[in-house]
């Protein structure tokens, strides 16, 4: 009973149940959905959004948002290909990718934390600015397969016991970020800030420094994710990563990362990303026109938020008398 109570508190539970339900449901209608190749397609296709969703979780738990990640990942995936084709080493180009992401994150974080500007607007602006710079730098150029570092090409094509390496990267990052978010004081501060900003100040949490730090981390991971994007598509142009940010936010919300801050995990964010990817494939397998995919995503977001609201209001107001009886 106590275990059940605990399980019901797990915010990721609805996402996991949804995941299983759609898998089984679709497979019953179309048994081909159960074939290993579908599972493989899901894991392979989800990598980019999953990594960005992990990074996005850092800021969403603080009741903030980072919309610039779509531009950042597109730009760095292009830079990695473009710079390697000019002879830079893989380590050098990955460092550039991280630095570009971290710099955008630092600008976002500074404007939000120290100037008190709303993150929605700040990162909307940097979304355009980074895309604008990208358009200028990448004008008329396209990164093609021959320009992609061979290590990345290899990563994008191969599997480890049937699991795409790209997804293994996701799992590794999820574990590192997950433990950090759960067990480091600095990351716990992010939850406190998102849950009650003014109280966070009062208990002596360095709120501004933490906000800056989280945006830098989101930016850096999103920048590095450019490598995964390049590994997956083997090409990059100024169109890369366009509109991805909203899918990322959707994945977080569906995975139980509360947009109101204070709760949710990177595990949930990955679940959310997988769920969205699964639905994409399920729609194909069920013979539903692909046009419906976006509408289904939208419905899912509303369902996720509605469920969240329902669960949080269902927590009964207890009092010390009631609790003892």
């Amino acid at each position, binding site marked *: 009973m106590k275990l059940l109570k605990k399980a019901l508190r797990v915010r990721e539970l609805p996402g996991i149940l949804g995941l299983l339900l759609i898998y089984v449901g679709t497979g019953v209608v179309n048994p081909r959905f159960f074939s290993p190749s579908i599972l493989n397609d899901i894991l392979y296709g989800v990598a980019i959004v999953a990594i960005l969703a992990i990074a996005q979780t850092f800021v969403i738990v603080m009741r903030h948002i980072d919309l610039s990640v779509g531009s950042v990942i597109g730009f760095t995936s292009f830079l990695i290909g473009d710079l390697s084709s000019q002879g830079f080493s893989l380590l050098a180009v990955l460092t550039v990718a991280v630095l570009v992401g971290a710099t955008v994150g630092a600008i976002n974080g500074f404007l939000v934390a120290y100037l008190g500007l709303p993150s929605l607007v700040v990162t909307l602006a940097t979304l355009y600015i980074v895309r604008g710079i990208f358009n200028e730098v990448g004008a008329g150029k396209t990164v093609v397969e021959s320009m992609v570092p061979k290590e990345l090409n290899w990563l994008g094509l191969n599997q480890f016991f049937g699991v795409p390496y790209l997804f293994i990267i996701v799992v590794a990052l999820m574990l590192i970020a997950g433990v950090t978010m759960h067990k480091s004081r600095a990351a716990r501060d992010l939850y406190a800030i998102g849950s009650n900003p*003014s109280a966070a100040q009062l208990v002596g949490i360095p709120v501004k420094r933490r906000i800056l730090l989280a945006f830098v981390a989101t930016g850096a991971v999103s920048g590095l994710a450019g490598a995964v994007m390049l590994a997956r598509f083997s090409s990059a142009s100024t169109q890369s990563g366009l509109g991805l940010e909203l899918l990322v936010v959707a994945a977080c919300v569906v995975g139980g990362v509360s947009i109101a801050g204070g709760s949710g995990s990177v595990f949930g964010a990955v679940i959310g990303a997988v769920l969205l990817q699964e639905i994409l494939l399920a729609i194909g397998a069920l013979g539903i026109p692909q046009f419906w995919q976006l509408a289904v995503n939208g419905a899912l977001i509303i369902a996720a938020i509605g469920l969240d609201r329902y669960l949080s209001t269902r927590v009964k107001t207890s009092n010390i008398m009631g609790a003892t009886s």
Partner: protein
Amino acid sequence: MAVTQEPVLEMRGAMKAFGGVQALNGADLKLFAGEIHALLGENGAGKSTLLKALAGVHKIDSGSIMLSGKPFLQGSTRAAQQQGVAVIYQEPSLFPDLTLAENVYVGRQLQKGKLVDWKQMQKEAAKLFAELGVDLDVDRIARGLSIADQQIVEIIKALSINARVIVMDEPTAALSSKEVNRLFSVARTLRDQNCAVVFVSHRLDEVFALCDKMTVMRDGTTVGSELISNISESEIIKMMVGREVSELFPKLPSTFGEVVLKVENLGSAGQFKDISFELRKGEILGFAGLVGSGRSEVVRAIFGVDTYDSGTVSVNGKLLPKGKASKAMSAGVALVPEDRRQEGLLMPNSIATNTSITVLKKLVKSLVVSKKGEDEVANKWAKILQLKYASLSDAVERLSGGNQQKIVLGKWLATDPQILIVDEPTRGIDVGTKSEVHRLLSQRAQEGLALIMVTSELPEVLGMADRILVMREGRQVAILSREEASSEKIITLATGSAELI
């Protein structure tokens, strides 16, 4: 309760001024380990400022605070906690999404190496809850906890930092009587663990039931400190008041006309009951009583922003429909609410917009609101109110509290009401502006405006009101004439002390 040793906390001659207001004017406080110490005084006596000095929110200008014989490091809430002083406010601010265990240790989570040790944290927190005899699941999140439970979590937090001084600021104001009893037993446990507990309350019966000692403040000064067993309720009340009040606010003489407002047997379940009075033209009726006695609820019901269950309200002999503020407004009633930031003003908008918003309909020219009309209205009232501002297009959020309050008054006076209800019209504004507001209201009354003035400040109600309606726990306990009213009488009626002075 063996009180022989050195005081754990001693404040001496504390002074603190905000602008021109001397909030603390030589306050003394001596606390001993193992005692529950009541801190008493009227609103504005300086209790809050004193508490905030102990909490590390304010730094005193001069005087000393010693903690166990060492100077107390002031001006940082974190430092105050680290030194072992914890202040628990009436409405605690927990982190709703975090578990109770993490709420207790937030910002200083227990660690094993570099990682947060959740198991240990849950164990320690559970132990502290058990010590206080409170059965709460430390794994649940704080969202949905009652105020009483939230206070308990704050107390646990204080225990977890080994607080030696635990200050509770009016903790019982929002609690049911069962919860109050629970809090009392927790407070006694803390005392037995050798903490010094400071208990701020307006309810004297609670003070007598719980406390060992008491200190009374008035006008920022400590008036006296005494063992509870050595003092009577009436002596405490005398210490709390005892000041000449009549000179502060010169009230202009006013002649009363016909009855404009008649309230009969007004009642609302769980809020107030059997409220009946009449208000005449030119008269100021004061509403006195403790915070939470139902005064605001009554005036809100009269004005129609809230509804009521029984009774009637009539203006000029005509019944007002219940729960319809627009009808009350067209009948000439206006309400200046208690919380001006939330309910009274559009903070980011201009002075002109805020002042004219109540009379917009009159300013409409060919379908749009005349900007010139707005400015004319605002200009007129800015003059009458002696508003201090740079431009009428300034956002009101940038004005001082006093000036904001003047605008709220102005916008309702602009409707040319017959009956004006003001709820705490001078809360949080400086003395100078205060007397200007009083002058303004007094003038309007002289011109025939009927006023209801809800106020928690005794000098204000004694100085301004022609008659005073005293409320206690939702009941109207008396209507006093200006001549028979006194601070002692009002406090006695409002606190329900049976003893008469």
